[in-house]
């Protein structure tokens, strides 16, 4: 309690007081912590499809983004496709980068570290013989993901490393990628 009340000078644009408040409130009302994230998707043509997100559920009620967000996905020309959008696996990388970077900003704010710039480069390896069914021993997904952060902040190199490590510890997408998840896909009429 002693350090939590000392005045913070960092301004990273993250309202950590609200996040800590939510943590405390949700400890007392764990059912409100149960969120449902949703997306819809329409096939456009060929390998192109369009996904949208707007509504989700949380804090015991239906919630809505301010606007509808749309993501086109397709495959590039080297896959004999029209390249009308990012490949779905690139959208996964974008999700990981967005999640980790948001976490870095939040953790920096909580630790009163002023960020000046944060940039990340991501690369994921994949042997496409898996998705082509050319070799049953090759998995479809990534064989590894490498993320490199470059961060300019008012903190020591170890404190910056600790920001990035803590962000991974608290990241949803990092967890989704590093741990197995049950996926159920059904077909309705």
């Amino acid at each position: 309690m002693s350090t939590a009340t000392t005045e913070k000078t960092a301004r990273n644009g993250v309202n950590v007081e609200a996040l800590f408040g939510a943590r405390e409130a949700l400890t007392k009302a764990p059912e409100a912590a149960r969120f449902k994230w949703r997306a819809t998707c329409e096939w456009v043509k060929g390998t192109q499809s369009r996904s949208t997100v707007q509504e989700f559920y949380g804090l015991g009620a239906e919630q809505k983004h301010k606007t509808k967000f749309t993501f086109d996905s397709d495959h590039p020309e080297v896959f004999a496709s029209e390249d009308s959008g990012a490949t779905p696996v690139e959208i996964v990388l974008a999700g990981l980068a967005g999640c980790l970077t948001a976490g870095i900003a939040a953790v920096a704010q909580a630790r009163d570290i002023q960020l000046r710039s944060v940039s990340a480069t991501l690369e994921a390896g994949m042997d496409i013989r898996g998705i082509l069914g050319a070799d049953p021993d090759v998995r479809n997904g990534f064989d590894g993901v490498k993320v490199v952060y470059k961060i300019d902040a008012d903190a020591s190199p170890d404190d910056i490393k600790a920001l990035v490590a803590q962000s991974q510890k608290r990241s949803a997408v990092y967890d989704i990628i590093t741990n197995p998840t049950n996926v159920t896909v059904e077909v309705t009429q």
Partner: protein
Amino acid sequence: MRTTVVVIGAGQAGLAMSWWLARHAIDHVLLERGEVANSWKTERWDSLTLLTPNWQSRLPGFGYVGNDPDGFRSMPETVGFLQDYARTIAAPVRTQTRVTCVRQRDEGYEVVTDRGTWQARAVVVASGACNIPVVPGIAGSLPADVASLTPFQYRNPSQLDPGGVLVVGASATGVQIADEVRRSGRSVTLAVGEHVRVPRTYRGRDIKWWMDASGVLDQRYDEVDDLVRARNVPSLQLAGYADRRSIDLNSLTRIGVRLIGRLAGINGSTLQFSGSLRNVCTLADLKMQRLLDTIDAWAAQQGLDGEVEAPRRFDATAVEESPPLLIDLARGRVKTIIWATGFRPDYSWLQMPVLDARGSIRHDGGVAEAPGLYVIGLPFLRRRKSSLIDGVGDDARDLSAHLAAYVREKVVQQVTLATV
């Protein structure tokens, strides 16, 4: 049977509480399911030693007498130490007395045992933090030919199949068992989640000396930012080896233990492991650096720099480029899984609405919500050292003072009522 205070458990916590209750001249009894120091005697593997040095087992009115203050007690020595303490303070222990139910009754408590029922004004739960090994649900889905052991069942490597062993969990229990089983010649894989890395000695002194002397162990529960986290920090990666060597993931890798991520799931016969190994190692390395920085700053401030060895830093934890994510048990390379995945208390006999959703007693520094109910001996109950033999005495002093005020107030109330 009637007494003022029933203390449940005659380990270090119950005995320290008994010493303080006697100082307050409060009539009490200690109910012990087995013998004094029962968990130390019956629920530990053969080679285990205390992880704190001999000098650091200070109990109220009692301490180490001997010529090896920096050594580490074996389990029989630990049991002997606590039995000596019980005798020295003449603790009123009822051994072989298992508590089966505690409930509120007439402004006090009824404590039912397999040897009769006690009525008391107050109850101190000193039955320990580690009564039941926590084993993940995955353990129920293992192929029948893979042996599954908790740390309570593990005694020594000779009881294991000669084949490979997977140790799940890399805190104090997991790293010590992995080290011992690997040295028995078996192939060992260690599944590593979040852990706390510390060197056994630093700058020529035991890490526990530094933590004790610098006040880290005295840090109070109402002074930490995040008490929930502080109470759930995994145990330090430590062993009490005679040669005082450190145990960490690098020392295990050097003797051939293979590191793998946290166990995350099972699919058929295939165990799935998290891809987070590198990050949990980085977190532990950075946390250790911060502890050593704190120690160095304190040493400089105390003017110790001339007396102790120079500061040093340790190699980062080495993690292979692409640690495996799957182990197919059907391939037969793993014959035994040892679950070093933590412990929890057993409150199945506590018939009162004092537990939270996770089954822990809700309490403020050991004072439970029900008046006259206390708990002692849990991690960070009142101080960072609360779960150590060395730390329970200060908690017993504080809680016995609270308890004494409570029972005296009750007496005054009853006397007043009687005279009206």
